[in-house]
């Protein structure tokens, strides 16, 4: 088995010294190119977990390693996409998308690549538009282009589509999976949306709340790369995930989905 891209050992976090831990003894590994969803109810600490993985916060116990090296802070090699697009409102779509290359001092060489990424997320026509004129979905597309333009190895998503309308959300879920698979980017997704997890991930980590810890590690063996929410196989994995979350009493048995 190849060395994991990301590995987490005994990770724990408290906001104050004597407070109840938000996360306790979290451990898992992610291989390069994998798409992993961390699923749990609101307040189970999954967003905190993502911040720790990205180095945007420091854990109070345990460690995160990427390529075998401990994560000590944020880096353009792993980029987080947040629930809100958080674009800079005085900039155009292109200027926002080009921030990663600009900070890395290679804007001149990357201008064409940024343009291509804007086209990939279907925002080429709005490249020169001030982002305040864009809709919520368009802004999140620009934020996606901005994340990809930094050329990360890992794209970390923190409920990135939950503020969007259902139609835009579904389109972006499918597109982000396709794009990251094509570019070979490892996807780490935090969500409370079970549909989002089964549509986007190869594997789901189910989290308990208070303290947050991993309750189950579910691989979606039966799912094809291109999938729709109505596929029987997707519905089957959705049922398994629901059961793991404790939402139903009876977990579906292998073979169940053939009968649907």
């Amino acid at each position, binding site marked *: 088995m190849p060395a994991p891209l990301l590995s987490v050992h005994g990770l724990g976090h408290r906001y104050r010294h004597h407070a109840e831990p938000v996360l306790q003894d979290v451990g898992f590994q992610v291989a390069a190119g994998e798409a992993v969803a961390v699923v749990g109810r609101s307040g189970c600490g999954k967003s905190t977990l993502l911040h720790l993985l*990205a180095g*945007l916060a420091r854990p109070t116990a345990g460690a995160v390693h990427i390529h075998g090296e401990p994560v000590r*802070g*944020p*880096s*353009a090699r792993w*980029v*987080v996409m*947040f629930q*809100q697009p*958080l674009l*800079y*409102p*005085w900039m155009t779509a292109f200027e926002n998308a080009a*921030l*990663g290359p*600009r*900070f*890395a001092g290679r804007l001149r060489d990357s201008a064409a690549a940024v343009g291509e990424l804007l086209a990939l997320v279907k925002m080429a026509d709005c490249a020169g538009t*001030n982002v*305040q*004129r864009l809709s919520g979905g368009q802004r999140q597309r620009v934020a996606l282009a*901005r994340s990809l333009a*930094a050329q990360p190895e890992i794209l970390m998503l923190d409920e990135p589509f939950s503020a969007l309308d259902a139609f835009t959300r579904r389109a972006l879920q499918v597109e982000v999976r396709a794009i990251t698979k094509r570019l070979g980017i490892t996807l780490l997704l935090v969500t409370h949306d079970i549909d989002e997890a089964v549509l986007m991930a190869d594997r789901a980590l189910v989290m308990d709340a208070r303290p947050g810890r991993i309750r189950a590690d579910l691989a979606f063996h039966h799912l094809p790369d291109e999938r729709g929410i109505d596929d029987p196989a997707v519905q089957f994995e959705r049922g398994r995930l629901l059961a793991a979350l404790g939402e139903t009493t009876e977990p579906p048995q292998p073979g169940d989905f053939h009968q649907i």
Partner: protein
Amino acid sequence: MAGVLWPVLGCAVVLAVWWLAGWRIAANPDTANFAGFAPGPTLRRLADLVARGELWRSAGPSLARVGQGMAVAVALGVPLGVLVGGSKAVRAATHIPFQFLRMVSPLAWMPIAVLSFASWDGAIVFLIAAAAVWPVTFATANGLAKIDPDWFKVARNLGAGPVQTLRVVVLPAIARDVLTGIRLALGVAWIVLVPAEYLGVTSGLGYAINDARDTLEYDRLAAMVLVIGTLGFALDGLCLGAIRRFGWDHER
């Protein structure tokens, strides 16, 4: 049409009151010496001042002093404001001294300024800067404190260093607040200018007013008041234009 009507009406009312007051002053034998304050003599004298270039000889040095004082105020106020707005410790440490200094009229420093500076010009520039630095500092600090913390998170997340964050995120984000502070400061500076120029200098609008009083040329005095108001209005308009140009939250 209505956009022009009301401003014109407002100015017409002021002009009418001015004319009426001038007429009453001229009609009263006790005050007839001051008839120069009326609109007619004032505007005739203003045209004369413009034609003979005296206006520019007075306004030029005044504008230069305000420009220098404002430059000092911005050069000190913006970095100071970034420190105050960016650090809780600096804010806590400077709150009382700054509020104290802010409430001291710049003209109260006049004797100290005269003692401290070799030239009258230096003292005037100091007084203007002392008046203008506070609005710039507080507006900058206020702008910095308002920045969405998530904007810093995004920059860190994309690999920005502290200098890049300052240049790419902080300065554009606070541009509007800084310019608003400069606009306020310029208003204060322009007001402080005239009494400051009552000091030893022999040029500038403040000197011209004092001089006109001493020579009993009340039409020239009123013309200078008109110039001070008009130039101040124009400077404020320039600031407003800059705010519109560089303030990004107008796009909404």
